[in-house]
């Protein structure tokens, strides 16, 4: 099913939806998918405008995506997009939970920890499985390290785009150090295969993990402060792709001054101390400031989580029975909140409804760049941390 701006699941002629930051799917009586998805915005036609087709495979973009950029002189009038070029239509129906988990991890490999934790959390609640607190804290440590890595990546794209070459190289260096630290602790730079239903699949070594992460984030903080003194850098991001209101997700939402973060509503994060970072303005600069603040907060969360994990046994058993359930959940990924509804029947996936943060952020992006100059396009896009891979549909 194609993703919409809300998680939808269709089963036996009924439609279920899951609101943001909630875990209980709601049956829509009389609703139809078409009505809930809404109409696609029509592309305006005008003879005095120029259309720049951009993509789907363009050097400079990390993933394949197509844009139609309608301009009048330097100014962007309208942007249309097609994220379907690399849509893998990942097939999940008929799979066991474990088989589905491997595919969910790869829905967005860069945010594997968040997506695998989300799916495991939903399945565990669906089968009423008691999961040791240690496993939850380990997942938090993974997700927060992943958030730092993802935010550093966005920072590297912005500094690279703004020709801040020394800062760019220093951030790449820090991110590489972080990935190596993750690989040493978890056996994989992107956490593939660590999460299992009810536990973890292999031993991890958290010795020195939190300390190393703190070291990396402290170094980043120095770079951030130096960048905030650079008029050239700030000017590139200032007033680029202004997004205001509730229709975006993650750092984009918080960059518009709205103090909403899925971690504040999720049971996993209860009892952990961290600040919700917000900024004013809703532009690329605000999103950069939010991400930079979150990097520091994530380091603090990693420290707290790791201090609560002592000895973890490898155990992810007992999940291949003939379970039947429908359950929902959400998780704050580095790009924003994702929602998912899972329906299992006799131990097999019957249907999955999903809404990624990139679906919201892409729509917010194309609406925000109208009126910007062509040069702002890249900064606006990169500052949102949009992942095309997670915008695809499931079968």
């Amino acid at each position, binding site marked *: 099913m194609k993703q919409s701006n809300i998680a939808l699941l269709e089963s036996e002629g009924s439609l279920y939806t899951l609101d943001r930051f909630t875990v209980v799917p709601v049956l829509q009586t009389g609703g139809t998918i078409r009505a809930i998805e809404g109409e696609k915005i029509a592309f305006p036609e005008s003879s005095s405008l120029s259309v720049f087709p951009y993509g*789907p*495979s*363009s*050097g*400079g973009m*990390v*993933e*394949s995506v197509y844009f139609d950029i309608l301009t009048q002189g330097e100014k962007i009038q309208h942007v249309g997009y097609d994220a*379907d*070029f*690399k*849509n*893998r239509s*990942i097939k999940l129906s008929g799979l066991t939970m*474990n*088989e589905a988990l*491997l*595919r969910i991890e*790869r*829905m*967005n*490999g*860069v945010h*594997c920890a968040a997506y695998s934790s989300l799916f495991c959390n939903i399945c565990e609640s669906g089968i009423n499985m008691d999961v040791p607190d240690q496993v939850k804290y380990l997942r938090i440590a993974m997700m927060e390290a992943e958030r730092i890595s993802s935010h550093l*990546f966005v920072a590297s794209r912005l500094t690279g785009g703004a020709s801040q070459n*020394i*800062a760019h*190289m*220093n951030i*790449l*260096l820090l*991110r*590489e*150090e972080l*990935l*190596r630290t993750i*690989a040493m602790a978890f*056996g*994989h*730079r*992107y956490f*593939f*295969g*660590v999460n299992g239903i009810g536990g973890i*699949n*292999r031993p991890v070594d958290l010795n020195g993990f939190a300390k190393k992460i703190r070291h990396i984030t402290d170094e980043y903080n*120095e770079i951030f402060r*130096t960048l905030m003194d650079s008029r050239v850098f700030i000017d590139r991001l200032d007033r680029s792709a202004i997004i205001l209101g509730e229709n975006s997700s993650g750092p984009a939402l918080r960059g518009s001054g709205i103090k909403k973060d899925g971690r504040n509503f999720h049971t996993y994060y209860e009892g952990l101390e961290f600040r919700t970072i917000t900024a004013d303005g809703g532009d690329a600069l605000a999103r950069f400031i939010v991400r930079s603040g979150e990097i520091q907060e994530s380091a603090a969360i990693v420290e707290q989580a790791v201090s609560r994990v002592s000895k973890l046994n490898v155990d992810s058993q007992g999940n291949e029975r003939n379970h039947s359930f429908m359950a929902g959940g959400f998780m704050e990924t580095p790009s924003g909140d994702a929602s998912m509804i899972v329906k299992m029947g006799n131990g097999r996936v019957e249907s999955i409804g999903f809404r990624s943060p990139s679906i919201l952020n892409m729509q917010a992006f194309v609406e925000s760049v109208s009126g910007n100059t062509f040069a702002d396009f890249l900064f606006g896009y990169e500052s949102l941390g949009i*992942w095309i*891979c997670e915008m695809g549909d499931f079968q």
Partner: protein
Amino acid sequence: MKAWILRSFKKGIITSKFPRGKNETASPWSTLPIYKKGKQDPYCPAGAIAQGKVDANRCISCGLCYPEYEPSMDIHGSESSVSVSALKKSIRIYQIDVGSCGACNLEIGALANPQYDMTRLGISFTNTPRHADALMVSGVLTENMREPLRRAYEAMAQPGVVFAVGACAISGSILGKAVSDALHIDVTVPGCPPDPFTIMDAVQKARGIV
């Protein structure tokens, strides 16, 4: 500016000596798993294990064969059917994502990180296939990317080298079709995703340097 210079001095030399020296690190499960113990082949969700051996092209680096298998930590798993000496001095690479999860793309991009510094080996990325000597393809082949991939290949100077980076591109992994459904693959770079050192090693093999 002074702050940046001081920072660089503090860091010292961080660039790898690879390939002249040994790779300093490896992402464990991105390297080929090797047999450790047990009488039977363990369950492998990618069907990569048979008779005590792992098919590198199918392995999705999930680690589910642990503890019977453990990572080899060997980053030399790529295979090249070409050895293009004309590219020994320099090679320009165009990266094309035909259906990836993003991680392979970032590991290809990681070659530009200071720790790898690909430019010291004459490797660079180009933003257009017209200036490319090689395509690095990542992801499973989606129907919609078939045509852009073909066009990128045709735009590249011939003979161009085609790298399939990652289990998806090489074999379709557990997610879809391999790139070989549309193009002949010259170099396979196994792993899900491959370690950046494995990608660097593959580039050197295709140039006949290793």
